[in-house]
């Protein structure tokens, strides 16, 4: 599996398909911190939400890298379809880890915040970026060509899904009360945002952990569904 991840990452780098999503994220972070000083929690919450979208973009470009025959040859070597996709998803996640480190360190190194970032804040910021990246990857996997053959339906569906995810709070407000539970099926990209906005940033015990756990559970369920659908 390690060799397959190495192969996938090297192939992705050589394909140069990383350039658009990664440079977009780098530029957005750069522009976002143009004015200083910035509030720590709010800033990290926004950069994590942007990473959610960028991760989805990375996932779509990563999963479209291998041709059908190339995929078949590797699956034969790995002796498992599931191992192939798990390896691919882990590779994408590693790319998002690098972006998380960038999003976390850039404002600290260039002193973009009002006050220093303590350990608790730093930990929560990294965690938020990581879980939203996993959510972005899982949502995009369902709209990859492995599941949806038509590129227009896949890209259109993913764009719609990401938009709905980000505007879930607004959707919740306008929905009649009997339909409000529908929001649970929407990818919970903004659930940690609400928790973070209400958090003082001093103690982790004051933070609602459920929203983070829910994102992880939601992502795992979607990834399991993807692995099942990709075996068809």
């Amino acid at each position, binding site marked *: 599996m390690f*060799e*397959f991840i*190495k*192969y996938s990452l*090297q*192939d992705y780098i*050589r*394909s140069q398909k990383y350039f658009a999503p990664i440079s977009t994220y780098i530029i957005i972070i750069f522009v976002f911190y143009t004015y200083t000083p910035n509030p720590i929690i709010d800033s990290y919450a926004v950069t994590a939400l942007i990473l959610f979208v960028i991760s989805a973009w990375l996932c779509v470009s990563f999963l479209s890298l*291998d*041709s059908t*025959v*190339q995929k*078949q*040859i*590797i*699956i*034969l*070597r*790995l002796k498992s379809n599931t191992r192939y996709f798990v390896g691919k998803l882990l590779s994408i996640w590693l790319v998002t880890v690098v972006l998380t480190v960038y999003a976390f360190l850039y404002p600290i190194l260039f002193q973009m915040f009002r006050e220093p970032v303590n350990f608790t804040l730093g930990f929560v910021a990294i965690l938020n970026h990581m879980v939203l990246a996993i959510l972005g990857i899982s949502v995009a996997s369902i709209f990859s060509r492995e599941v949806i053959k038509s590129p227009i339906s896949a890209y259109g569906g993913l764009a719609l899904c990401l938009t709905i995810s980000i505007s879930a709070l607004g959707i919740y407000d306008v929905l009649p009360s009997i339909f409000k539970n529908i929001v649970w099926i929407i990818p919970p990209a903004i659930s940690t945002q609400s928790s973070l906005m209400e958090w003082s940033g001093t103690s982790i015990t004051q933070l609602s952990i459920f929203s983070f756990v829910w994102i992880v559970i939601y992502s795992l369920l979607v990834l399991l569904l993807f692995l099942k659908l990709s*075996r*068809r």
Partner: protein
Amino acid sequence: MGDLLKRLVKLENIRKIYSKRVVLNNISLSVYKNQTIAILGGNGTGKSTLLRLIAGIERPNSGNIVYPTKSIQIGYVPERFPIMIRFTPSEYLYYIGRIGGVSKVILEKRIPYLLKRFQLKDNQRIQKLSKGNLQKVGIIQAILQTPDLLILDEPISGLDQHAQQELSIVLKELKEQGATILLTYHESNFFNDLVEETYYLEGGQLSTTIPTTEIEPMKLIIAKQLNQSAVKEWGEVIHAITEDNKLLLYVFEKNSDTVLSKILHLQGTIDSVLTVDTIKGKV
């Protein structure tokens, strides 16, 4: 029990449907250890699909594919090796080997050896290779690890003379080592001395008899007082052999009159003209 031990793959009532079209219907086949099987048929008859199903990289819509031995090593040469590979042949083969669990030490010896054997240069990325060289990469990746079952989908398509000879030798070596070989081809009788059993695919069905659509009537003209070198340039002659001072000429039925008049023009004599049924593309 002995039969079970020797069996490598068993297909039971396999059915495969693509876009509502039944490509394979009720296919049952047993492949035994050290066997060499050819699956022949026209374009679009499902040969490649059948090979992919046996390799385990596609699933049937119904039926079972059983591998009595759990961990068999399968090598697969696709009909068209993918172009968009951004590695040089040795980089790619190294990764493919490592992903398949081959040790670095073995790969460092085996890859240069196979590249040299197939005269494949390692100075550019696979995406820039010619069709024949792509095919060589496809073959080498399949035999990096000595396979228990080697599946080749039209392997000689695009290969140069040397690579064709080398492939033929490699297949014989693998067979001596106990490998089972399963292949499709339709452009020549290249594998005739290797293949032990031939199946024909037509209408989604597998049979051991040649389907009528695959039979091509030809004429076998037996001529005397004619040298084989004289007919060398005749485009109508598919195959020529000299036997007991007689020249045996295989020609398509529609060209037989032309060939007969050419023989007479060279003052050769016609011994006999026979009608022979041959499989398309083969003599």
